[in-house]
């Protein structure tokens, strides 16, 4: 089992979700995050003084997948999120030790379905 963490542009969320549903990946957690890459973000100005914080809004997705679905998930996220511009984001793949469905107690691959 793997945990796929994807950081994407905020406005690409709808497209990414659509692509994931096409691949029958229906388990997903989403939250808003702040971050930047090598371009170091954009600094804001308040009453004439620049602030040092320079983080941009991004969306983070966490998707637990069985190994068989890993390739399709990565491709789906990439299809939905890619614009070709700087700031498209990253996908991280982590080894997932276990997964438990709380309602029924199923573990392992069955819990991901």
């Amino acid at each position, binding site marked *: 089992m793997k945990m796929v963490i994807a950081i994407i542009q905020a406005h690409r969320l709808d497209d990414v979700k659509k692509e994931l549903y096409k691949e029958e990946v229906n388990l997903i957690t989403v939250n808003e995050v702040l971050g930047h890459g090598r371009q170091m973000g954009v600094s804001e*100005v308040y009453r*004439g*003084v620049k*602030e040092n914080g320079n983080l941009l809004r991004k969306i983070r997705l966490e998707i637990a997948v069985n190994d068989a679905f890993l390739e399709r998930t990565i491709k789906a996220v990439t299809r939905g999120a890619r614009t070709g511009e700087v700031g498209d984001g990253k996908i991280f793949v982590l080894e997932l030790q276990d997964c438990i469905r709380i309602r029924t107690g199923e573990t392992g691959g069955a819990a991901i379905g």
Partner: protein
Amino acid sequence: MFRKYFVMLSLASILTLLALPAIISADDTAVTNPPAQVVAVAAAVPAPAPAAKIDSGDTSWVLTSTALVMLMTLPGLAFFYGGLVRKKNVLSILMQCGVMLCVISLQWVLFGYSLAFGPAKGFWGGLQWIGLSGVGFAPYPDYSPTIPHQLFMIFQAMFAVITPALIVGAFAERMKFSAFLLFSILWSTFVYCPVAHWVWGVGGFLRDMGALDFAGGTVVHINAGIAALVTALVLGKRKGYENQPIPPHNIPFTVIGAGLLWFGWFGFNSGSALSASGLAVSAFVVTNTAAAAAGLAWALLEWVHNGKPTTLGVATGAVAGLVAITPASGFVGVIPAIVIGIMVSVICFIMVAFVKPKIGYDDSLDAFGVHGIGGIWGALATGLFASKAINPAGSDGLFFGNPAQFLVQLKAVAVTIAYSLVMTLIICKVVDLIVGLRVKEKDEIMGLDLTQHREGAYTVLE
């Protein structure tokens, strides 16, 4: 880099000089009811008080203005400042403004009004009107010949409320609530009341000297602005403030506050005419004009300096314009109002964007940078642009052939600065001895809302 600003400052000064012909040739209508609050140039024989008869138009307008000025403190100033602090401290700001309204409202009717406007001469107005004894519904002609005395009193109450509330902007996010309460009561009694007496009270020495302050440039803005500087320096910088701005948590709140302040300011300035008259209209018009000029000027300054105009900039600029026009509102015409508005944005922008970071003091919400500096410019500008054609009960300023007025304004400004500075320092020390001014460091980090009020403003997890 500084060449850019030197150029801007020069351009603004040239604008002022170019506007002179327009100012001098402007034909503004004179007032029909000169308000008694406005001072005539010092005369050996005081002008005879007009017949004291209640005018319903005047009374309605001043009643409305009183409510408008109340709005300026809560929610106007409360949200203007509230949006500028961090999420964890927003309630402390709202609380301070709200409680100020309660506390000073009571202080005023119990003894504040008597100290500020009572008939005694000298340092204070005396205790004759304690508990509003003797303050009835017939007009008190020395202040306002056409409205009930109690109306004048309650109108002034709202000014007394908002002045200490302005200082909140300097010590935001790090003052103990108990210290704030004690400080506010002492400051209002020992700084606001005397200065109000000197500038507006019958027998007040600055009034008798001929100082012009239509609605509170000296009494409100310079007074509070200097106190703000003192408290900011005494309390020290906020934790984490190292010459970098702490971003506002809710700029929409600040814009709401700025809009409410602009709206309420019509009562602040135009209501100070104490009549529904040509003078009230004149004050209304220049108030709006100065605010508009200043808001736009700040936006343009930012556009040049930072590449983009900001919402916070327009809001700040508009408020600065309102501050600056306050002492001048019943004495100047519309072209000077534009000049006053543009210049205050230039001066305050330089103050807030360059001088403050360079010196490094933490006037959290620019109470000194906008209200103090803006008030000083406004009071001096009154000495430049005042015209008897606008208000015969006032004076002419430097640009109208009377350089003496500018000196009088300068003196009044200097006295107010000196007194406010020394007294505020003393009060700070006294309060520090009794309850301690600043919160503990870990309380400051956790936020005043939770530590001073056991309240959270926004639920994160429900």
